[in-house]
Structure formats: structure tokens, C-alpha cells
């Protein structure tokens, strides 16, 4: 049933591609004379592109347990591999355009980016708590380095410092939870742990383990109250890195959250397709509360922000809260809603950050005041940003609305009405701070009315990100079908 090392290699091709790219990048960087050439960027693009193509090579079917049960190759893992690799692709292009990173050697930057991507590949497919911890650290540690990449800037170093300390603490708590689970079950495989817990275990260690593991995963998805690192890190890191953090590790965090909790703390009922809780701890209720608090805190604190990157950080926190709604429902439609939302969220969030990069290039700052009058100075970028921001709010006819409808629909279907009302009110609150940016762009007059040139490549990227945001708001069947096909998590 479990595939050995050699047999698993056939299902490990995307990871192998990324690993090979990383090694080539190191060699290239060491061997090259010109430290600021753009060759590393293109090599990284090729590598990530290859990994996306390879991810689709073997269809997952019902799923396979690879590397002696350490990882799973199933539809769920493939979805997240494709999602995170695509996000990385866009971020690489964004980094090539970024003024903050211009003039610095970017080879190591791409090495860190790809290492994080490798970690996310492993995190999406991990079915063993040792592998889980390893991949979570593999995602986190290069992220610390990415956050602190701008060595001369105080903000960047501060961001990295805070990220390290917070991440280390959260990981520590999480692995303590893992150790409790190992102690109870005697095995490190999540499926085995799930079976042992389902057979009946005393409540207290299970509760402690569930809460502690929630700390670690909650830190990764920046849920309240584990979100404190997020605004500072997002503000201090180079903007393409921030864009990356807001989408890819968050997505991988959700992947592991769903996979871990649904395997270890719940049992799948094949007849109805739903999951049921196996312990006496009502962890969906706990997460529902976390979701409500996360949305509310994220939205309310964002209102006061002056720095657009910080504002988008808090907005990412709020969106993690919305996605957590789908998590508490223990139904395939709930997971499907999360997956769909992650796809549309990728486009909207990366698009918004792309425009922040462009504004940062010309204005050397990312405050709200730098966006004033963008409607007349760079109309194309301003319209694109408006599309992304209104999509993030969740109003028709943008894709963000459809994402929210899926989440709300399943919440109402499963009867958790209070959560739906909280989320609806939060959407209204979020309009206020997104509209503040739109207001600055269109309704206020700029101090310096000179036009900001938008390079053709950047323009093309913006179109590439805005088009799905618009189109998926009207016709989203393919993505919905992809999401529902990817709900299959290997059960063994």
C-alpha cells in the first residue's frame, strides 16, 4: 500500500524539479561574475513552470501514499502544488519588476523563494507529523530570510527578527502538541493517530494537543490571536515577498490545517461524505470562534492603517478568517469553498500587491498619500487596483463575490447562522478601508500630477491578474469543477 522510495519518485517530479532548480541557482550564483544579472530570475521561472507542468503529469486518481506513508499524492496535494507554484511564478515576475530589489543580487532571493515553494509542496502532501514539522520549518525559515532580504533597511531587519522569534515560538508549541499526539498513538502517521484517537482517548491530552497544534497552524495562516507578526513582517519585507507571504504560505497553511484536522481529529463518513468529530472536544466550534475573531480584528484594525502594505496585511488576516469559515463545516462543500476562494484570492491579492510594487517603484513609499491621484497619473494601474480591491470586498460582478457566496452558502447550509451574519457585517466594514484607497486614487487631487509610466510587461501582468478577477465573477465553472475534484484527500 505504501510506495517505497524508488517507486515514489515518479510522483515526486515537481519537487525534484524545484530542487534541481535550487541547486542550479546556487551553482550559477557562485560561478557567475556579474552579480546582478537576470539569469537567476529566468532559471527560477523555468524551474517553477516545469514543476507546474510536472504536477499534472500523473493524475492522482484516488491517491497514493508515497515515501512509506510520509506524504500523500492525491488531488488535494496536486491542487495546492499548482496553486502555490503559480503564485510563486507571479511573484518571480513581480520581483523582476520591483524597484526595491533592483540593484541587489537576486539569486539568493530566488533560492529562498524556491526553497519556500519546496516546503509548501511537502506541506500540502504531508501525512506524517515529522514530515509536517520539517516542511513547516522549510516553509518558515526561508521566509524569515525573504522578509529580511533588504539588508540595509531597518524595517526589513526588524520584520525578519519578529518573524523568527514568533515563528520559533509557534513551532515550538506546535511540536509539543505533536509530541502529545505521538505519545497517545505510538505512531507518527496522521492516519494512524486518527484511528487511535477515534477509538477513544482521555479528553485532556487530546484537547491540549488540538489547541497546541492550532497555535502552530494558526500562526502560519495568521489567524487571531497568532497574527501579531503579520503586519510588521508584511510592512518590512520587500513588497514581492509580502505578496508571496500573503498568498502562498497561507494557502499551504490551510492545506495542512484541513488535512491534519480532518485526518487526526475527525473521521470520514463515506456514506454522507461528511466528517464527524472523534473526540469530546468541539474543535469546529473553537475554530468558528477563531474565524469570527480573526475577521473582526483584521477588518477593524485595518481601518486605521496609513501604510498600504500594513492595510493589506490586516486584510489578509481578515480573509484568512473568511476561509476558516469553510473549515469548521466538516463537509466537502466547505473544503471546496476554501479551495475556490484561495484561487480567486490569489489573483486579487497578488494583483493588488503588484500595483503597490509599481507605486512603490515611482514614489519610493507605500503610504496612502503615495496613492493620491493615481487615477489621473496611472489610470490603467488605478483601475486595475480598484478591480482587485472591490473584488477583495466581495461585491458583484467580481470573482471575490463568488468566492464569498460559496463560503456563505455552505455556512448557511450547515446552519451556523451567527457566523454568516458576522462575516456579512465584516464584508461591509472591509468596504470602508478598501474604498479609502480607491478614494485616494480617484477622488483626491495629487500633489504631483506627473504621469507614472507603467512598463509594458507590468501592464501585461496586471491584465493577466485582472482578467480572471473579472471573468471568474461571471463564469467560474472550470475553477469550481477543479476545486470539487480536488477535495479527495487520501485516506489510509
Amino acid at each position, binding site marked *: 500500500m505504501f510506495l517505497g522510495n524508488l517507486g515514489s519518485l515518479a510522483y515526486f517530479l515537481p519537487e525534484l524539479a524545484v530542487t534541481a532548480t535550487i541547486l542550479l541557482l546556487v551553482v550559477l550564483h557562485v560561478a557567475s561574475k556579474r552579480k546582478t544579472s537576470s539569469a537567476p530570475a529566468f532559471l527560477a521561472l523555468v524551474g517553477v513552470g516545469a514543476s507546474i507542468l510536472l504536477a499534472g503529469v500523473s493524475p492522482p486518481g484516488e491517491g497514493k501514499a508515497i515515501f512509506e506513508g510520509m506524504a500523500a499524492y492525491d488531488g488535494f496535494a496536486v491542487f495546492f502544488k499548482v496553486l502555490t507554484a503559480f503564485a510563486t511564478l507571479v511573484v518571480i515576475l513581480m520581483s523582476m519588476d520591483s524597484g526595491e530589489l533592483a540593484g541587489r543580487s537576486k539569486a539568493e532571493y530566488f533560492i529562498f523563494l524556491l526553497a519556500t515553494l519546496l516546503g509548501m509542496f511537502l506541506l500540502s502532501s504531508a501525512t506524517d507529523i515529522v514530515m509536517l514539522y520539517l516542511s513547516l520549518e522549510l516553509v518558515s525559515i526561508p521566509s524569515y530570510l525573504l522578509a529580511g532580504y533588504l539588508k540595509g533597511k531597518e524595517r526589513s531587519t526588524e520584520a525578519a527578527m519578529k518573524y523568527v522569534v514568533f515563528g520559533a515560538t509557534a513551532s515550538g508549541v506546535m511540536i509539543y502538541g505533536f509530541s502529545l499526539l505521538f505519545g497517545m498513538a505510538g505512531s507518527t502517521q496522521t492516519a494512524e493517530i486518527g484511528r487511535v484517537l477515534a477509538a477513544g482517548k482521555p479528553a485532556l491530552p487530546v484537547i491540549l494537543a488540538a489547541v497546541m497544534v492550532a497555535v502552530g497552524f494558526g500562526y502560519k495562516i495568521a489567524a487571531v490571536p497568532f497574527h501579531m507578526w503579520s503586519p510588521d513582517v508584511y510592512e518590512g519585507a520587500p513588497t514581492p515577498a509580502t505578496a508571496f507571504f500573503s498568498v502562498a504560505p497561507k494557502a499551504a497553511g490551510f492545506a495542512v490545517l484541513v488535512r491534519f484536522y480532518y485526518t487526526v481529529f475527525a473521521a470520514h463518513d463515506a456514506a454522507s461524505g461528511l466528517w464527524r468529530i472523534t473526540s469530546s472536544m468541539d474543535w469546529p466550534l473553537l475554530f468558528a470562534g477563531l474565524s469570527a475573531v480573526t475577521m473582526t480584528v483584521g477588518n477593524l484594525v485595518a481601518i486605521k492603517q496609513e501604510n498600504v502594505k500594513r492595510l493589506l496585511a490586516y486584510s489578509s488576516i481578515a480573509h484568512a478568517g473568511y476561509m476558516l469559515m469553510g473549515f469548521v463545516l466538516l463537509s466537502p462543500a466547505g473544503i471546496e469553498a476554501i479551495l475556490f476562494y484561495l484561487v480567486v484570492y490569489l489573483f486579487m491579492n497578488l494583483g493588488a500587491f503588484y500595483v503597490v510594487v509599481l507605486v512603490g517603484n515611482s514614489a519610493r513609499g507605500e503610504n496612502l498619500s503615495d496613492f493620491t491621484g493615481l487615477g489621473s497619473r496611472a489610470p490603467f494601474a488605478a483601475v486595475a487596483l480598484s478591480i482587485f480591491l472591490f473584488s477583495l470586498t466581495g461585491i*458583484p*460582478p467580481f470573482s471575490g463575490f463568488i468566492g464569498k457566496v460559496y463560503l456563505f452558502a455552505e455556512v448557511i447550509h450547515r446552519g451556523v447562522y451567527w457566523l454568516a451574519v458576522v462575516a456579512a457585517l465584516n464584508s461591509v466594514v472591509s468596504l470602508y478601508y478598501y474604498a479609502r484607497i480607491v478614494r485616494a486614487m480617484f*477622488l483626491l487631487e495629487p500633489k504631483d500630477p506627473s504621469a507614472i509610466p507603467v512598463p509594458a510587461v507590468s501592464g501585461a501582468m496586471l491584465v493577466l491578474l485582472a482578467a480572471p478577477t473579472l471573468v471568474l465573477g461571471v463564469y467560474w465553472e472550470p475553477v469550481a469543477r477543479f476545486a470539487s475534484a480536488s477535495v479527495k484527500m487520501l485516506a489510509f
Partner: protein
Amino acid sequence: MGFVDNHILSLMTFLPLLGAAVLLCVPRGKDDVIRWIAAAASFLPVLLAVKLWFAYDRTVAGVNTASQFQFVEHYTWIPSINAEYFLGADGISMPLLLLTALLSFLAVIGSFGIEKKVKGYMALFLLLETGMMGVFASLDFFLFYVFWEVMLLPMYFLIGIWGGPRKEYAAIKFFLYTLAGSVLMLLVLLALYFNTTNPETGGHTFNLLHYMAQGTHNAWLKGFDVRILLFLGLFIGFAIKVPLFPFHTWLPDAHVEAPTAISVILAGVLLKMGTYGLMRISFPIFPDATRWFAVPMAVIGVVNIVYGALCALAQSDLKKMVAYSSVSHMGFVMLGMAALTPLGMAGASMQMFSHGLITAMLFFLVGVVYDRAHHRQIDGFGGLGAVVPVYTGFISFAFFASLGLPGLSGFVAEQMVFLGSFEAFRPFVVVAACGIVFVAAFHLWSLQRVFLGPLNPKYATMEEINAREMFCLTPLGIIVLLVGVWPMPVMNLLNASAVRLVDIVKAVL
């Protein structure tokens, strides 16, 4: 011709959008071309509206019966969630479709004075028109919701970029308020979706007509407390739009700060959407909750009438006074609807149509004087009747129509509402009728202060109303007069559906 006949509602809805797409391609600087393209794009729905008027069968009611709807277009849209592209017209939506088409066209003509960023303005306006038409034509709740929300974005920009001194505040206030109502509507929409079954397929549906058929509701949805909750959720969402007291505070700001043509559309069409939503969605789907809530609705209506009139009396800004008069007039609609009598309901529909025309005239006229004097302070004028007699004539006509002078459409509508509500809510009608005195008061008093009395020397050389402005006002004035003396054509349009709606709510059917 067959294509036009079979898709008349879709064409009315999407031609403005097509026009917006066309004018976005016009190169910068050719503002006149943009203006005429926009005018053409909004004139085509007017022609189609004329066709609707003549093609509509006035004997058929069609409030909750699919076969009795006219100009129906029914296609599958999104199979995975069972959302359909379902358009249709009946007596409730017909007057509003015609009103929207006419007012949108006149508003575009009235917007020819805008000089700044004309392309963006016209594109957003045409997008707004698409949303408005779509709302009145939709019979699928998801489609209705999408069109409803589509209106919010253009309004935000139209008020926020081309508006008055406090435009950003007014724009965001409008946006937040209406979005709050909309998300409540979304929650009720989803609750209805999951708890009803499509009688033909057995699955879920967004089709409003299926919601109205009581047999499709599941056990949870049949519980009275649940129904009350959902009804109130929808009521708040629509009440914000009407606007009913105490959710009306966005209206004075939005109306005053919006540019003239946008105020016309806001007051003339957007306000009607709230009451239309109640008639189309809330009343037929939740008739028991409607009956339960009838008295509070009537009270709110009367409060609107009296409070709106008193607030208008206190205003020093002419446009704000007209805005509050809108609040007051919409109170009549609410009172007529809450009475749940055929005459009351027909009166409410008539008042929606009539008020749309009258308030459009009023806002155009206020815009005229603002263009010339650059302020709207009532006490800052005086004796303008001597300088601009034609304008004075127009505005007197509009003011008299607004206060319900017999012979003009406002009187017909208000009388129908009073007669219809008298049996049900005698004391409320008495209070409302006394409230009419205040309505008359502020109209006549402001007329006297601005146009009669000693001439304010600052405006001795004010320009007379010009041809374009008269072109915007004249059709409205003619229709108001016609409906006032001969209301039967419009009555026939809406009567059958109004009677049937009352029967549904009273559970006679």
C-alpha cells in the same frame, strides 16, 4: 424583428452596457462623440420601452404565476448552483421599466454639462443603467442580487468624483449603507436557496416564482419565527433603499452632493427599487409575515411622510429640501403597500411612477438654478420670477405636482393611497393627511422666498432656462399632466398585478 421581440428585456438591459464598451474605445478628447454615443445608447431602451407599452397585455396579472409573465427570457446560466437567466415583466415592474428608460435618457442629456472626465462619467452611467434595468427585469434572485450590487460601484464613483463639496463623505456613506442592506439580503437569499426545492427538478433554485409557491418550502422555512426573521432581514435591506425612517440618513447627503443628473436617477429610480423589492420579493414569498408586520410598516410610512415634510420645512438648501420631500413621498408608497388593499397597492405603484417623474423634474430644476448661481440657499435668492419667468413657470408646475395639486399625477396617486388605506388604518391616514399641510407649506414657502417677493439684485441678469434643460423637463411635465387628468392608461398597466399581489398577501388565493 423576431430577435428583438424575443429578447426585448435583455436588449433594454444590455444595450447601455454595449454603449459603454463602445465609448470606452473613443480616443481621448472627443467629448462630444462620447456624449452622443451615450445618448444613443440610452435612447434605444426608450424606443424599446415604447414597444413594451404597446405590446403589453394589460389583462394578465402574473405576480406569482410563471405563465402570466410577459417578455419572458428563461435560460440556464450557472448549472452548478442552479442560477437561471430569467427575465420577465408584469404589472409591478412595467411602469418602473418605462420610468427607468425615460429617466436614464433624460439624465444623459442633462449630463451634457459635465466637463471633467466625460468618458468615465458616461461609461459609469451606462453601467448604472444596465444594473437598474436588470433589477426590474430579473425574476431569478441571484440575477436580481448581482444587478442590485452592480449599481453600487458606479454610484460611488459618480457621486465621489463629480459631486459637490462633501462628495467623498456622501459617496462612502451611500456605499456602506446600501452594502450593509445588500449583505443582509444575501444571507436571506442563501437561506431561501437551501430551504426550498425546485418543483420540477427537486434540487435547489434561485427562481423567485418557485419561492412564491408555498409547497416548495421545507419544514424549517415553514416555521413562523424563521419567516419573520427572514422577512425582517429583507425588510431592512430594502428599507435602506426606500429610504424608510430611521435608515434614511444617507439620502440627504447623497442627493445634495451628487451631480444633478445623478440626483435625478437616484431619486427617480433607485429609491423605487426598495419598494419594488418589497413588492416583488418580500410580499409574495412571506405573505404571513407581511400581514404580521403591516401595522409597523404603515406607521413607518406615516413617520416618513410627516418627518420628511417637517425636515424639508427646516432646510435652507433647496436641493436638500427636495431630497427630504422625496423621503416624504416614499412614505406614501409604504403606507399604500402596508394597507394591503387593491386600491392602496395600486396607489403605491402609481405613486412610485408619479414620484419618479416629479422628483426628476424637481432635481433638474434645482440643477438649473445651481448652474447659474452656484449655490442653493433659499434665502440667498429672491424675486427670480421677474428675471426668469419660463423657469419659474416650470418650477411652479413641478412644485404643485409635488404637493399633490389635483389635475397632476401626484394627486391621483396620493388619493388612491389615502382611499386604499382609510379602511385599514384610519388614524394613520388622518395623521398623514395633516402631514400634507407641511408638504404644501415647504413647497409654497420656498416658492415664495425664491421666486416671489423683492428681487435680489445679484440675480437681476440670470440666464433663462435653455433649450437643453427644457428638453429634459418637457416630456416629464407632459406625462405628469396627462396622468393627472387621465390616469387610466397607467392604471391599466399596473392594476391587475396590484390586485393579485394583495390577494396573495391576504391569502385569499
